[in-house]
């Protein structure tokens, strides 16, 4: 256990120093993130009634960006990390050394979470400057915690499936990027399910992602979910656990496959 913690700390320290401190990743990242918010939100304002409350619009944007950023972390920080590990030769090193990936991911997880927390702060500040402070109401803190836990479970499961596919098939960056765009939209991550067209609503409810997103919108914005709150919790927990189990089995299968066949190395993005 102590060895695991030491390894995870070594990963954390090296990432924090190289990515965030030495290359000023945080500074560049926050400036870039702020501009992306402007780029994303400005055309949306053209669809909105000018008499609409800007704080409500900002709150809507805040929640959508929050969920999108979590999906982004799962896609790029966790799943695509396997691709960079293959390209750098670290993946084989981890397998041969017998340490597995756990210390690596325990090391980079705090960085992802710190980044996400900081981006949410920036998200709030930028939207406050552009439209006024997002109207966050915090109706149910317990539900907020449940929502976040379920969202994280689902994203870990999603990262395992995407990561497993990346190591075994050499999926390109283009495919990952397109998936990163479509998934949050199609699974009801970014918009309330009640506002989705019926077929998309049904599809979203068949995926585990829609439940934590509805929980978060209910707890932060006070928006009425598509179903009873308890039903939302029960369905959310069950689907998240099933999804996690399936993804773990899938990832293990893909790992076994690469141990037999080797990893697919792709030289380009």
């Amino acid at each position: 256990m102590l060895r695991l913690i030491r390894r995870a700390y070594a990963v954390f320290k090296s990432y924090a120093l190289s990515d965030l401190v030495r290359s000023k990743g945080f500074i560049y990242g926050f400036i870039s993130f702020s501009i992306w918010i402007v780029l994303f939100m400005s055309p949306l304002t053209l669809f909105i009634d000018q008499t609409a409350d800007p704080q409500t619009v900002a709150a809507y944007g805040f929640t959508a960006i929050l969920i999108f950023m979590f999906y982004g972390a799962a896609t790029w920080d966790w799943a695509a990390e396997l691709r960079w590990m293959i390209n750098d030769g670290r993946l084989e090193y981890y397998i041969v050394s017998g340490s597995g990936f756990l210390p690596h991911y325990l090391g980079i997880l705090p960085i992802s979470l710190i980044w996400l927390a900081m981006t949410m702060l920036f998200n709030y500040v930028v939207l406050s400057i552009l439209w006024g402070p997002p109207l966050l109401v915090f109706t149910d803190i317990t539900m907020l915690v449940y929502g976040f836990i379920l969202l994280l479970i689902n994203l870990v499961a999603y990262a395992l499936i995407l990561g497993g596919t990346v190591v075994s098939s050499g999926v390109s960056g283009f495919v990952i990027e397109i998936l990163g765009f479509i998934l949050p939209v199609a699974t009801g991550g970014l918009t309330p399910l009640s506002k989705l067209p019926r077929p998309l609503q049904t599809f979203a409810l068949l995926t585990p992602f829609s439940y934590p997103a509805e929980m978060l919108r209910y707890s932060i914005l006070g928006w009425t979910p598509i179903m009873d709150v308890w039903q939302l919790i029960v369905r959310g927990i069950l689907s998240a656990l099933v999804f996690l189990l399936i993804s773990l089995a899938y990832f293990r299968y893909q790992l076994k496959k690469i141990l037999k066949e080797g990893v697919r190395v792709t030289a380009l993005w």
Partner: protein
Amino acid sequence: MKLHTILRAEFSLVYGEIFRRKSALAAMIIYPYLFAGFTLFFGYTIGSPQLFIERVGVEPTIFMITASNIVMSIITAVDDVLWRPLHDMYVGTLPYIIASPINKLELFIAIPIPRLSLLLMTGFTSIAPIYTLYYGMNGIVLALAIISLIALGALTMSTLGIVIAGLIHTIGESWRILNIVRPLIMVLLGAYYPRMFMPLSAYIVSFLIPSSHVVETIHRILLGSIDNLYLFPILAIILAFTYIPGSRRSLLYWEKKKVSEGVKTY
């Protein structure tokens, strides 16, 4: 080495890679629909298309598919010249390029053209079908005019793109700077958010970007406002030529820095 020789080499490189990697080709076709769909999806759930038409004067689907194609094509002129020195540094070919007698300005002008040609072709898979759906056969003529203007917009962007690339790679060599420059130009082009709605300070900066005038021309055509339309592309061309001495100088600074300090290894 003449410009057409450089172009031939660049074309072979890019087209070879694109046809080898079919997923990249598929992504190029999907991206305009993806970006347009993403914005429309949000716009429709948060507001209404009628409000958009009242404010902008153009049907949102037409506006967004055009905007997505504009951004993808024009940003290539900046993206490719920003990425290439970094890519060459990562794969170790940069010292050879610095040492070669090739005219660097011609090289950097040639770099984005192959990918641009591919992106313009995606105009026929995105803009043309949507326009035909809305305007019938007239839509094809309109699509051709818009695609030609997008090509002009991208070409007029290349000199400013080289100025930015040369300066950025002289100051620092982080790919992270690209993630700032890229969305900033996307905003200032006024493709997704027309210039007429921008605050004055943003409008002034946008005015200095040659392609933003071509974007405005496209918006005016879609609005049916064709008075003095030719002035904007002329302004874009004049601005593009104005940046030529700056682009040559910024490449020179970059080259001198590499020669004096050496090329860093990845």
